[in-house]
């Protein structure tokens, strides 16, 4: 039993944090908002140089060959940076899905994911829209109980603008054919199930980072801004708003990290652990958005102030890969099963 990350994992986190701090500022994000896709092929290529898209791609396919425990700290950093590129869809969900499918499809696409030459989007059967479909080269899509891999040229995409200019989602339709089907029945169901867990886990990790960033912005602002002759951050009413966020954040983090471990190790409790993680991390982030906005006052309510770049990320992540009620339902179902093992000593048991 050791809940710590190893030195290599922590070093990689620091490296990625420093790198993203240098590459992605609020100005960069705002600049991308003004583009047609809100995505930057150059930025994606740069991310590939440090291995991010191919983190879960096996080494034999040119990736980093890492697992979700290695990845979870880095995903948190992408959330802290406000990164909008399709890390969740392509790196966290599609890559392991393709690895699971195997064969020629994996051989063809995994190396391209690792080098940043392909973006793969995933349309989960339980979700109405497909994230990042507008920039995808390949889409993994459901048709009945089948899983299809469809080239961008063969799908019809209807973009659905959202409240977050960084979040690009679309309705996608395609003609399912023999040639596009890559799995069906139980195999497909298994792939969809793990895809859902991976997507939710990645969003949870990003939500932690977004929450932490909003706290940082609010601490800086309330330390500078003076009213009644003092920094407003010296007033307890303001302090307590942010302390409450810190409590939620620090108690969400180990839940997310444990979920990463459960996904990586294929635990039977994986789905339960991921849903807990998605729920508490997104709650922390959405709560963080509300509290940090309040601490800013009117300036926080402007388009000009950068806080809302992360507020919108928080809301987006809450809406991605299963809304909170769906995740709560999964937890509820698990603990209300008649033979559920609960109570002291059961947290780390896999039964």
């Amino acid at each position, binding site marked *: *039993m*050791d*809940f*710590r*990350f*190893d030195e290599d994992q922590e070093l990689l986190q620091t490296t990625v944090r420093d790198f993203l701090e240098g590459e992605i500022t609020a100005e960069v994000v705002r600049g991308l908002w003004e583009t047609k896709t809100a995505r930057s092929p150059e930025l994606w290529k740069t991310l590939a140089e440090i291995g991010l898209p191919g983190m879960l791609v096996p080494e034999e396919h040119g990736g980093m060959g890492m697992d979700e*425990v290695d990845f979870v700290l880095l995903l948190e950093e992408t959330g802290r940076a406000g990164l909008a590129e399709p890390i969740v869809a392509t790196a966290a969900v599609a890559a392991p899905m393709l690895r699971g499918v195997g064969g020629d499809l994996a051989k063809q696409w995994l190396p391209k994911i690792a080098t940043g030459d392909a973006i793969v989007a995933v349309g989960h059967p339980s979700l109405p829209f497909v994230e990042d479909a507008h920039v995808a080269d390949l889409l993994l899509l459901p048709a009945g109980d089948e899983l299809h891999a469809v080239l961008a040229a063969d799908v019809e995409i209807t973009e659905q603008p959202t409240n977050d200019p960084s979040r690009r989602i679309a309705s996608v339709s395609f003609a399912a054919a023999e040639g596009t089907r890559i799995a069906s029945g139980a195999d497909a169901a298994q792939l969809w199930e793990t895809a859902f867990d991976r997507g939710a886990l990645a969003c949870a990790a990003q939500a932690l980072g977004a929450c932490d960033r909003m*706290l940082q912005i609010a*601490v800086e602002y*309330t*330390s500078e801004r003076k009213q009644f002759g*003092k*920094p407003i*951050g*010296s007033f*307890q009413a*303001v*302090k*307590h708003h*942010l*302390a*409450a966020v*810190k*409590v939620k954040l*620090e*108690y*969400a*983090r*180990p*839940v997310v*990290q*444990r979920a990463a*471990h459960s996904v990586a190790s294929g635990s039977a409790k994986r789905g339960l652990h991921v849903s*807990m993680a998605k*729920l*508490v991390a997104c709650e922390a982030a959405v709560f963080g958005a509300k509290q940090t906005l309040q601490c800013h006052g009117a300036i926080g309510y402007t388009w000009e102030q950068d806080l809302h770049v992360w507020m919108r990320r928080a809301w987006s992540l809450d809406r991605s890969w299963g809304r909170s009620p769906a995740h*709560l339902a999964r*937890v*509820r179902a698990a*603990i*209300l099963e008649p033979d*559920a093992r*609960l*109570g*002291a*000593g*059961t*947290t*780390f048991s896999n039964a």
Partner: protein
Amino acid sequence: MDLTFTREQDGFRAEARAWLGAHVPGEPLRSFDTAEGAKQHREWEAILNGGGWAMVPWPVEYGGRGANLLEWLIFEEEYYRAGAPKRINQNGIFLLGPTIMEYGTPEQKARFLPKMASSEEVWVQGWSEPNAGSDMANIQTTAIRDGDHFIVNGQKTWASRGAFGDWLFGMFRTDPESERHKGLTFILAPLDLPGITVRPIEQLDGLPGFAEVFFDDVRVPVEHQLGEEGQGWQVAMSTAGFERGLMLRSPARFQDTARRLVELYRANAADVEDAIRDEVARCWIGAEAYTLETFRTVSRLLAGGKIGAESSLNKIFWSELDLRMHELALEILGDRGDLLPGAPAAEGVGSWLDGYLFALSGPIYAGTNEIQRNIISERLLGMPR
């Protein structure tokens, strides 16, 4: 990251489970805030100590079994799983004990720890004073050096276990010219010294869980000073860290409450609103989160890390969770939630009402949650004072 227990840890768990299974009293004891219950709890502690289980993380020479913090958490899980009695000497074993381990002289360790482990000496908290509650640095009770004694004058209040305890620990102002955090010294005093008057105070449940303690020219030997003279604040912060975090409130307690809450919900599911079901699930998640965070902290401590202001995060989290779980339980019980245990229709209501009254004290003791939020914002977030 390795989230499995080793074979040794599983073996330790099995040993604790077997011993507790054979020794935990079948009938619940009376509250340790009654004379009869205090006696019962001391007897239980003697049995626990006889088996070597009173304080497993302590060295063998002081009545422990030299276990590490991880094994301590495992023991706690088994202790709650077995439904074993509450710990009457929690102020001693969980708070003062670790502080003596850190600051005590070899003589003090040998003098105090074994009798603490056995609960032959039950410890009383002497933190608050009439004018020093949240503003703890405003302590006014003086302990003036006179040869090899301190002469103590003043008053402590809200002294937990004061009614039936034996020894008191607290901070006293040894430099009468000093102000605030300076000039305070951590001192241990037996309550049977001449000049000490203990006046029990009934708590919200009607029992004397704490007391006022008056000092009138009380002579306390200087060898009962813990840590350096004038360094009382630093010593006390160490004690408070244990109180806010993993020693006094290890996760097993809340995992157990969450389990009982889920079971209560299941037994009454037909009669309660769906919204309550969701809240029950959230509480269960909260207990899991508290457990995970504690294991994460212990992993860090075992690798040589330190715990500081983070214990304020714990304090807020467990106290709010505990209160929420008890509020929900009473909602599930509906009209029966208000029944005292002896009421004719009280079958199946369990101890939730009593637990609720106790849970209400959680956001207050060990430093109010408002004080904890100040600490979090200033020391963890770096906000201005």
